[in-house]
């Protein structure tokens, strides 16, 4: 059984990840995501990531071993939907106390598993490790093994304590747990040439059900969805699928790749967001299944459904196009869905102002650039004030983002639509695209914006925070415009590498002085990207900009 650190190293070595392939050996060891900045705005932890990835398995009891914070503060907050059991929404935690911290929490964990099995009799119990029991050395693998033997039920340890890294890493560690303990442990009642795995889809707001009827009609069976509306047994026999689709960008690539390696299940990375993406994904599914021996008329059925559904969706969207003419959208989202949503919005005739690539991989960025043409205005690490200014300058009519940046949009009295996990609406497939367009229309034309923008009777519009923010931003810009030396200083002072605290100017100087052309060269001379390695992408871009006629970098 591999140790946690070995598993993490293994995950970092993921060859299926394009970004990873571009890294040096040293970078790869450092991990695959930006190191968390103390004091900087933080996202979820690895435990969070693991739980998010697995919790949509509906009939499993998800037991969190740790103090009350880990489960108590976060349970039942996910928008995934179940067609069957609701056990997944029951919060189970060992809620360890001081005594447990001193004497160890293993007994409590074992008893908790026992109680859950006695009271709920689930097909499996997933035990999530958290920071405190990991620190005091609780061996959840051993406890799970003992419980498994005693109760004759799968008890699966999920080793992803929060402090090992960010959410993204947790997703992958969850995948590792499935690969190690679940996948391939049971057999389906029967198989067909049309059996498909969908990996990295969580059925948020029930969105998988927007696509499933089409698969049903074409005759494709979802053998297993990991993990949206999934059941334990379905995951356990998922190794008998003929092909797989990986939905959520990079979150569970390790599962897809290792299943290909171990069981010969070919996969492709696809999306059900956007009309064309959905059609492409359906075609790709059919193609892979035919390759694995399904009768070729599957493609005819698939094309027929695509043709019909596309026509219907376009017709439904067409009536919005005049209403969206000249309307600009600012898209701020995690990497998960950036590029697929971009395509979807352009289909509806909306113009994109920019898109945040904070969590996107470089590939994602390239795809966005490709989709949006050369004028794409990437917004990386926009500050709330800049975001506000952008909205205010009416360069955007509506903002689409995840839950966190909504407040800026709302406080700026700007239409906003939620497209991340916590949202209420499902936006998948053809029907979901129409729904998204309807929701954008609803948000754009809601009269509430005109209401809330009205100044209060006692307000002097020149002194509210919004105008102060604009004034401050303008004053800064004016000062810089008037003082090119200062402007250059500010530009050069932009921090590129957070780990080693290296500024743009230092990197530029090094490139010029030493004629550098590679990230490795820059690292050698400036130490930039010598930490987590995440800024290698930015350094690449700097190299590109400074040597536009230089040959492409080897890693590309």
């Amino acid at each position, binding site marked *: 059984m591999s140790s946690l650190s070995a598993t993490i190293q293994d995950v970092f070595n993921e060859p299926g990840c394009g970004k990873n392939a571009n890294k040096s050996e040293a970078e790869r060891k450092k991990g695959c995501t930006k190191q968390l900045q103390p004091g900087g705005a933080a996202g979820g932890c690895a435990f969070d990531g693991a739980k998010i990835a697995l919790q949509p398995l509906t009939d499993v009891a998800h037991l969190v071993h740790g103090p009350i914070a880990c489960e108590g503060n976060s349970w039942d907050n996910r928008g995934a*939907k179940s*067609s069957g059991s609701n056990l997944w929404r029951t919060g189970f935690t060992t809620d360890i106390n001081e005594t447990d911290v001193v004497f160890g929490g293993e007994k409590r964990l074992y008893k908790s598993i026992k109680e859950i099995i006695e009271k709920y009799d689930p097909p499996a119990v997933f035990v999530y490790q958290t920071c405190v029991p990991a620190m005091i050395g609780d061996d959840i693998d051993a406890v799970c093994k003992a419980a498994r033997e005693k109760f004759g039920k799968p008890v699966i340890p999920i080793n992803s304590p929060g402090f090992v890294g960010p959410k993204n890493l947790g997703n992958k560690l969850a995948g590792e747990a499935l690969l190690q303990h679940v996948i391939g442990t049971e057999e389906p009642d029967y198989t067909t040439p049309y059996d498909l795995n969908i990996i990295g889809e969580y059925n948020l*707001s*029930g969105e998988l*059900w*927007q696509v*499933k*009827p089409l698969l049903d009609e074409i005759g494709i069976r979802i053998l297993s969805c990991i993990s949206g*509306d999934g059941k334990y047994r379905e995951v356990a026999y998922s190794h008998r699928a003929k092909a797989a689709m990986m939905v959520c960008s990079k979150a569970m690539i390790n599962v897809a790749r290792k299943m290909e390696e171990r069981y010969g299940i070919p996969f492709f990375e696809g999306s059900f967001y956007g009309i064309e993406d959905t059609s492409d994904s359906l075609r790709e599914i059919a193609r892979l299944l035919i390759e694995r021996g399904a009768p070729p008329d599957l493609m005819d059925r698939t094309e027929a459904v695509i043709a019909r*559904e596309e026509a*219907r*969706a376009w*017709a*439904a969207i067409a009536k919005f196009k005049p209403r969206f003419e000249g309307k600009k959208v600012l898209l701020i989202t995690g990497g998960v869905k950036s590029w697929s949503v971009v395509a979807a919005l352009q289909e509806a005739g909306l113009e994109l102002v920019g898109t945040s690539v904070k969590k996107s991989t470089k590939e994602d960025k390239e795809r966005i650039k490709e989709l949006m043409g050369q004028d794409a205005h990437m917004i990386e690490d926009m500050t709330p004030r800049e975001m506000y200014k952008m909205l205010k300058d009416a360069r955007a009519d509506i903002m689409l983002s995840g839950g966190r940046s909504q407040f800026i949009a*709302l406080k700026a*009295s700007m239409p906003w639509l*939620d497209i991340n996990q916590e949202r*209420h609406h*499902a936006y998948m*497939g*053809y*029907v*979901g695209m*129409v*729904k998204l367009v*309807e929701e954008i229309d*609803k*948000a754009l*034309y*809601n*009269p*509430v914006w005109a*209401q*809330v923008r*009205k100044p*209060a*009777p*006692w307000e002097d519009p020149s002194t509210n925070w919004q105008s102060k923010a604009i004034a401050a931003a303008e004053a800064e810009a004016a000062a810089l415009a008037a003082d090119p030396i200062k402007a250059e200083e500010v530009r050069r002072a932009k921090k590129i590498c957070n780990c080693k605290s290296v500024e743009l100017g230092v990197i530029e100087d090094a490139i010029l002085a030493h004629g550098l052309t590679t990230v490795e060269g820059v690292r050698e001379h400036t130490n930039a990207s010598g930490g987590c390695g995440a800024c290698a992408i930015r350094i690449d871009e700097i190299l590109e900009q400074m040597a536009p006629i230089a040959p492409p970098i080897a890693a590309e």
Partner: protein
Amino acid sequence: MATVTISKKACSVNPLKMSQPIGGALAFMGLRGAMPLLHGSQGCTSFGLVLFTRHFKEAIPMQTTAMSEVATVLGGYENVEQAILNIYKRAKPEIIGICSTGVTETKGDDVDGYIRQIRAKHSDVANLPIVYVSTPDFKDAFQDGWGKTVAKIVEVLVETPKNASRRDATRVNVLPGSHLTPGDLDELRTIIEDFGLEPTFLPDLSGSLDGHIPDDFTPTTIGGAGVEEVAAMGQAGWTIAIGEQMRLAAEAMKDKTGIPYRLFERLCGLEPNDAFIAFLSEISGRPAPMKYRRQRGQLVDAMLDGHFHIGGRKVAIGAEPDLLHDVGGLLTEMGAHIHVAVTTTQSPILERVATDDVLIGDLEDLENLARERGCDLLVTHSHGRQGAARLKIPFFRIGIPMFDRLGGGHQLTVGYRGGRDLIFDISNLLMADHEENHEPTPESWRGGVESLHTASH
């Protein structure tokens, strides 16, 4: 601009409307020590009594002239005389308010004449304040009865000031429409007093029907505006009328005392309250207190948070004209669409309701149109519950009667705070409905694009 149509049906089914005399009786209940007296048969009073008792969950003072068949034909002088004398003896009221009904109006009783005769004949009631309003059941509706009664109270009880220069600029008359609850009046009193102004409410249900437990049993109203306070309203600096139904009373006040008035058509929502606060600031010469600056922010925030749920809703609303305009306005500003508006009576305000057509009709019309037009939120008084159940759509209760829920007397619509809470209540209702009835299933979208419009949300 909405076009107003009147239902052509002969038979009203599941009425939305309530009658004029009980609107008038309720207005009298906003006076201290009052006994409303309906001049009609016993049932006229008892139905009103039961309706108010179920709505307010309070003992309701209301009397009847108990017209018999013979009295109806021969005229009700003796019944009015006996009623006044009996009430005077037993209840010791400070004022008796008489509303006519369909029965006595059909016969054509001259109640004003009766009262003169009774006063002349019985010295103990010669100086007892008695206000009579003509409110035939077969004409107009509840809010009209309320409005006419307040106007009549002003005409009869308010004293014309002898010297206009003795006006007290800090005193403000408030004439609230029948769509405001006792809770609304409390809120308005607080707001107005926070500007250093001293309000007199006419009628003042906040003192009488706010659900407090009295120290002592009294057969008349407890609390409310006293007769002498009403008489002194002529010395106020301003009159604030709330709701178009109060224009008549505000004009009466102006005619009698020369006090200028400002009529607020709405006090529900952001803009109406901005205007209200600005007005109070102007007449008091004081800046808006910090409290209201914060409350405004809270309302704005509630609107932003609530618009996700209320925005795009197809609303069917049934309410009296002023309430329809007020709450319907807020819903519209939150992005809802009023697809069906049904009301009870004519009012100039109706054409300003934010919808295509307003129907003067009943709850059957409301239900059928809501079904026809695919509405997904029903807003009306408690009698809408059967229709909502048949339509299987969420149901938000506003107005009188609210007999199957508690707190109708304290439901707030006025002020920044009232709007904020109303938004929360409606949004929460919609969220709960979504959880209970509209969670997606594997079958939700089987119909493709069409499924979006058959089962939205």
